[in-house]
C-alpha cells in the first residue's frame, strides 16, 4: 500500500501551490496528479479482486503486475521516475471495484490497471471515465467493456467475440485435419453469464459447422457432484465434450469422467476454467491429459516468456494467464507514459490510443487500438500433452501437434 509521507518544506509548498493555482486557472484538473507524481514517484493503481470468490485469480494478477513494476523500477523507472503502485482490492464485486477507483482517484494515480472479471472491468471503466483516468483492462473479455465508447478504456488482450470465433474455427481445423472424427457434441456449462452465454453461442454456431449437439447440460456453481452429468454423457456417448466451467467444477467434471471411464474423442474448451491450468495438470495429470482449450496464452517460443515463467515457478507459483496478462498491461501502460512524457491523464490516454507496444510474451499481431480494443490480440489453442501444456494453434506459435482423436 502506498501512502507516502512527503516532507513538505516551505519551498516545495510554494512551488506546488503556485503550480497548482496555475493549473486550476488553466482548467486542467489533472495537473495536481503530475505534481504529486513528481514528488513521490509515478502513482499507478493496481486493482484486483484479491479477496472474495475470485481472490486466487486476483492474487495471481497482482503478482504479475508487481513483477512488471519491480522490473521497470529496477531498470531505473520511467524516464527516471519510479513507479509507485497503489494497490486496491475489488473484493470480487463490481461495487468493490468502483469504490477502489474513488480511492485511487483521491490518491491521484495517473492510471489504473486490472479488474480481472468482466463485471468488475465494466464498473471500473465507467467509474474511471468520470475522472478521465486511463484504464488498462487486464483480462475481462466481455465485448461490452470496449464497445460503450469510453475513451479511457484499453484492452490489450482479446475479447470474447474474437476468442470464440478463433475457438470455433480452430475446432473445425483440428477436426478436419484428423479426418472429421467428431460429429456429435455435449456441452456442459455453468449456468451464470459466462457458461450460459458460451453455450448459447455454441448452440447457434456448431450445427452450421457440421456438429450435432446431443445435449446442453447446465449446472450451478458450486456443483458438489458430477456423477449425474457424467452418466448423461456416458448414456449418449458423444464424440466431443465441451465444458464451460470455472476451475473447481471443471476439475471435478474431468475427474469424474476419468473415474467413470468416460473417454470421448476429445475434450475441448473455450476459456475453460481448468483446461489450460498448470495446477490442474500437476495435481491430476491423468484427468487433464489431452484436454484442449482456446484461451489467453503466451508464446511458448519466446525466450522472455520462458524466463518469466521460470521466475514465477521458482517462487512456487503457477504461471497462470492472469499473471502474464497483468504483466503485459503494466508494460503497455509504462510504454504509454514514457511516450506521453508526463504523468498527465489526458496525455497517457492519447499515448495509449496510438500505442504500438509489442509484448515479447504474447502470440499477438501488431498492436493497434480501435475503440480501446487491441486488434492484434488473439487467443491460442493449447493441449495437455506430456504432463505439460503445449500450444497447438496458431501454427506460427505452436510447439506441438494436436493429438486428436484421443488415442484409445
Amino acid at each position, binding site marked *: 500500500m502506498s501512502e507516502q509521507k512527503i516532507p513538505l518544506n516551505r519551498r516545495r509548498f510554494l512551488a506546488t501551490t503556485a503550480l497548482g493555482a496555475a493549473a486550476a486557472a488553466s482548467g486542467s484538473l489533472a495537473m495536481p496528479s503530475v505534481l504529486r507524481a513528481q514528488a513521490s514517484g509515478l502513482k499507478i493503481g493496481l486493482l484486483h479482486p484479491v479477496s472474495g470468490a475470485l481472490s486466487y485469480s486476483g492474487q495471481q494478477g497482482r503478482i504479475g503486475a508487481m513483477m512488471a513494476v519491480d522490473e521497470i523500477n529496477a531498470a531505473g523507472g520511467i524516464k527516471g521516475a519510479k513507479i509507485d503502485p497503489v494497490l486496491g482490492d475489488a473484493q470480487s464485486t463490481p461495487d468493490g471495484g468502483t469504490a477502489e477507483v474513488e480511492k485511487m482517484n483521491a490518491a491521484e494515480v495517473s492510471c489504473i490497471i486490472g479488474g480481472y472479471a468482466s463485471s468488475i472491468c465494466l464498473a471500473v471503466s465507467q467509474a474511471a471515465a468520470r475522472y478521465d483516468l486511463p484504464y488498462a483492462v487486464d483480462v475481462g473479455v466481455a465485448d461490452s467493456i470496449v464497445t460503450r465508447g469510453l475513451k479511457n478504456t484499453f484492452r490489450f488482450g482479446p475479447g470474447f467475440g474474437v476468442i470464440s470465433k478463433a475457438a470455433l474455427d480452430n475446432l473445425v481445423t483440428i477436426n478436419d485435419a484428423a479426418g472429421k472424427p467428431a460429429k456429435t457434441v455435449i456441452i456442459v456449462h455453468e449456468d451464470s453469464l459466462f457458461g450460459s452465454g458460451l453455450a448459447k453461442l455454441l448452440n447457434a454456431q456448431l450445427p452450421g459447422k457440421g456438429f450435432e449437439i446431443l445435449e446442453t447440460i447446465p449446472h450451478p456453481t458450486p456443483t458438489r457432484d458430477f456423477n449425474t452429468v457424467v452418466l448423461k454423457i456416458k448414456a449418449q456417448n458423444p464424440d466431443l465434450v465441451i465444458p464451460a466451467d470455472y476451475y473447481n467444477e471443471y476439475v471435478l467434471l474431468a475427474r469424474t469422467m476419468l473415474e467413470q471411464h468416460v473417454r470421448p474423442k476429445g475434450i475441448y474448451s473455450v476459456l475453460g476454467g481448468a483446461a489450460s491450468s498448470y495446477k490442474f495438470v500437476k495435481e491430476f495429470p491423468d*484427468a487433464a491429459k489431452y484436454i484442449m482449450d482456446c484461451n489467453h496464452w503466451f508464446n511458448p517460443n519466446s525466450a522472455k516468456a520462458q524466463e518469466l515463467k521460470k521466475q514465477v515457478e521458482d517462487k512456487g507459483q503457477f504461471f497462470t494467464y492472469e499473471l502474464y496478462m497483468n504483466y503485459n498491461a503494466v508494460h503497455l501502460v509504462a510504454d504509454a507514459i514514457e511516450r506521453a512524457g508526463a504523468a498527465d491523464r489526458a496525455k497517457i490516454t492519447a499515448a495509449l490510443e496510438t500505442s504500438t507496444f509489442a509484448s515479447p510474451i504474447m502470440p499477438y499481431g501488431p498492436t493497434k487500438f480501435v475503440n480501446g480494443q487491441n486488434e492484434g490480440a488473439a487467443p491460442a489453442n493449447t493441449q495437455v500433452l506430456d504432463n505439460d501444456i503445449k500450444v497447438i494453434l496458431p501454427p506460427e506459435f505452436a510447439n506441438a501437434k494436436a493429438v486428436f482423436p484421443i488415442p484409445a
Partner: protein
Amino acid sequence: MTRVFSPLILITAVLNGLMTGAVYALVALGLTLIYGVLHIINFAHGALLSAALFAAFLAWQKLGLDPYLAAFLLAPVFFALGYGLQRFIIGPASHGDDRNMLLVTLGLAVLIENALLYEFHADTRTVDLAYGFKSIDVGFTFLAVSRLISFIAVFAVALVLWLIMSRTDIGKAIRAVASEKLGAELAGIDVAHIYAMTFGLGTACVAIAACLLIPNYYASPSAGNAFVLIAFTIVVLGGMGSVPGALIGGLIVGVVESLGGFFFGESLGQVGIFLIFIAVLLVRPRGLFGAGA
C-alpha cells in the same frame, strides 16, 4: 427432454444418489444432533466442514495420512474442538438464551471462514490418492472405490452414534436433556457439559464427513457451505433431532437430486430437493421420524 434411457442407466443414477446422499446424511447427522439437544440451528456447521476439509488435506500433505485413517485422528480432535467451542464460547456468550446461541454460531461461521481465507487464500486444495480414480466394474456401471468406502463408513458412523445414544450413560443423559432440560438438570445432569458433548459429537461427524469427502472433492474456505443447505433440508425431512431420520433423509435427498439432475438437468434438478422441503413443512412439519412438537 423426452429421450428414453435404459433402466440400467436409471439404476446407476439411483446408486449415485445413494452414495452421494450418504455423505449428505453424515453432515446432516451432526446438524440434527445439535438441533435435537440444543434446539439451535448451528450456522457454523458449514464453516466447520470447510475447516475439517483443510484439516484432512493437511493431514494428508504434512503427515502423509490417508484421509480414511485421518478420520480416526480428526474425529477426536474435532470432538474436542466442538466441545471447547460450545463450553467456552457459544455457551457463555449466549447467557442462557437460545436465540443468542444462534447468533454466536453465525459469528463463528464468519470468523472461521475468514481465518481460513487468511491462512489458505481462496485457492482450492485437493488430495491425489493412488486409489483416487479406481472404480469397480459391476457390469452395467463403474462404482468409484472411494465413494463406496464413504457409503459404508457413513452407516458405521451412524451405528456407532446410535449405540452411543441408546446404550451409554452419556447417551441417556443427552436424550434426557433433549426431552426435558429442567428435569435433567434436577436429576443432577450437568447440562452445560451435555450441551458441549453434543456439540462435540456433531463436530466429530463433520470431521469424518470431511475425510470421506476429500478424496473426491476439494478444500476451500467456502467448500463446506455447498453442503449445509442440503443438510438443513435433510434435517427437516428426517425430523429435527432424529438420527435415523437424518440417515434416511440423506439417502432420499441424494436419490432425488440424482434423478432430478438426470431428468431435468443439474440446475433444475436441485428444485426437487426444495420441493421436498416445502412439501414436508406443509404435510408433515415434524419430519419423517421427528418427535411430535
